[in-house]
């Protein structure tokens, strides 16, 4: 199996000063985290808020600079890569955010929202843009009639499909899913999970899947990493870890499930 992403002893520290005369404080948001993700696999990241899940995601996407450690994407070291160089990879690695009202520009139509990533990354020729938008809509299960609508005219589930379509538009191979269903309702959650699983197979995607919901992680992921205070405290196959947790914190998370 081909390794898509390899992360070694990755750390991110923030230095804060609460006042002019106060002592410097170091916040260790992520501490020496290591994991790897192979082709067509999904790795779930679970842990309480503030445990560093999203910081890991931002580091992997190189939206922020690591303080230490190493990130390899498709075998190439991107740890300290400059933004101009990084741009070559931007289309390969995408993120699906949790749906809230401010993820999509409310003034842009679905058509414009889907053309934007296609144009930025030069995915298709200008003459093929319309056809490509139609194809993307179909691929994420939206009807062609939604194309001229604004996000405000669509339901939460439909907007989440648009967010997903934008991520796959660039032919991404690795997608970071940051709580993609937690804002959605039970009846819609399943639709999106089914879609993500179908796309993973159709497009041979790998997911780094962040969620606080153990049920969702169990359904979506092959492997799981449990984070606490910036560290991975337990990692393994999803069934092994959830059915037979070794770390006390993992047990606590499972017990707290309703």
């Amino acid at each position, binding site marked *: 199996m081909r390794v898509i992403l390899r992360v070694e002893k990755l750390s991110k520290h923030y230095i804060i000063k609460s006042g002019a005369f106060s002592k410097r404080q170091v916040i260790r948001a992520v501490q020496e985290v290591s994991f790897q993700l192979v082709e067509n696999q999904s790795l779930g990241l679970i842990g309480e808020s503030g445990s560093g899940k999203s910081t890991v995601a931002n580091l992997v996407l190189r939206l922020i600079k690591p303080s230490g450690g190493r990130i390899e994407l498709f075998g190439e070291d991107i740890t300290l890569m400059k933004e101009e160089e990084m741009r070559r990879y931007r289309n390969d690695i995408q993120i699906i955010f949790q749906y809230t009202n401010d993820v999509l520009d409310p003034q842009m139509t679905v058509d414009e929202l889907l053309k934007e990533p296609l144009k930025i990354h030069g995915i298709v020729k200008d003459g093929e843009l319309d056809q490509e938008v139609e194809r993307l809509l179909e691929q994420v299960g939206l009807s062609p009639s939604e194309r001229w609508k604004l996000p405000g005219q669509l*339901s939460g589930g439909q907007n989440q499909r648009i967010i997903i379509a934008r991520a796959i538009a660039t032919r991404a191979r690795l997608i970071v899913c940051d709580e993609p269903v937690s804002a959605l*309702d*039970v009846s819609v959650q*399943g639709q999106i999970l*089914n879609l993500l699983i179908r796309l993973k197979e159709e497009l041979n995607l790998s997911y780094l899947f962040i969620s606080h919901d153990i049920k969702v992680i169990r359904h979506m992921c092959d492997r799981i990493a449990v984070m606490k205070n910036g560290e991975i405290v337990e990692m393994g196959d999803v069934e092994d870890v959830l059915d037979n947790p070794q770390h006390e914190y993992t047990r606590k998370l499972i017990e*707290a499930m309703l």
Partner: protein
Amino acid sequence: MDGEGKVEISGAENMEDKLLDVRDLKVSFYSDKGSVQVVRGFDISMKKGEIVGILGESGSGKTVSSSSIIKLVDESLGSIDSGEAIFKGRDLLKLSEKDLKRIRGDEISYIFQNSSAALSPYKRIGKQLGEVLKTHGRVVSKEHILRTLEEVGLEDGERIYHMYPFQLSGGQNQRIMIAQCILCSPELLIADEPTSSIDASLQKTILDLLKDISMRNKMSVIIITHDFGVARYLCDRLMVMYAGLVLEEGTIEEMLNSPLHPYTQELIRCARSLAEDDETMYTIEGAPPTPYQFRDECPFYSRCSLREGACREGIPQKIDLDGRRVRCIRYEKR
């Protein structure tokens, strides 16, 4: 249906036990396309010490209806079209803003969804809590504040009293929010997704806390949630909202074990599908209508597998079945 086995006490309700009775509440919002009704029929009746859940998709009207009970809907944004909310013999909807201010935070408290924004970052915890007491004309007593902090499970009250919210964790701040809400011993607490912004590992603790306070102080709780797990864990009774209407209501056991409305039935199948980790998730196709799409018909019509022509002849009436209520014409004939 196995309705005959259950002899519910709802018919012989003790009037003294009744705390709140909301009937036929309708709320509209103004928009550039004119006024849109987002709550089209909301009724709730609560006894002392009872915990009632309101479950629904986002946009179903659960927050608007419950915040309208104490008129928290901004008058420049929307209006209450009709209804009454009788709380201890007075109609809250007819009270002046001045009287309502006295009731809010005193007799009825409200925990907002994004509660971290409800604490002032500039004031120490003790001062903030003291202000609540002062606002409601009560004696500002440090002992009382410390006792309340202890009641919400904050052991180190004396230290926390002098701290700022940013020095505390999310879970601690959530507890302080609850402390703020119960400081004046309210008879009714409305909690809007009180655990959605905190960690899964803390969720149970906060719910236990609410349950405990409710029992100890005979405080009634309305909890708004979209999570069946939360509802099952906490509630005595459950109401399911959809497209601005209460579609079904019953005890939590009835609702989970023998749901009547096709929407509730489907919703439970969806939740079960995830819990049992089915290969493919069971889903309800389509999406709920937005307020602009509301029509005079059953709002679930387009997604319902049991639909028939008659479902489109007006919004289905509320049907009372041994204390359970359901809005579906399939039960009309019985």
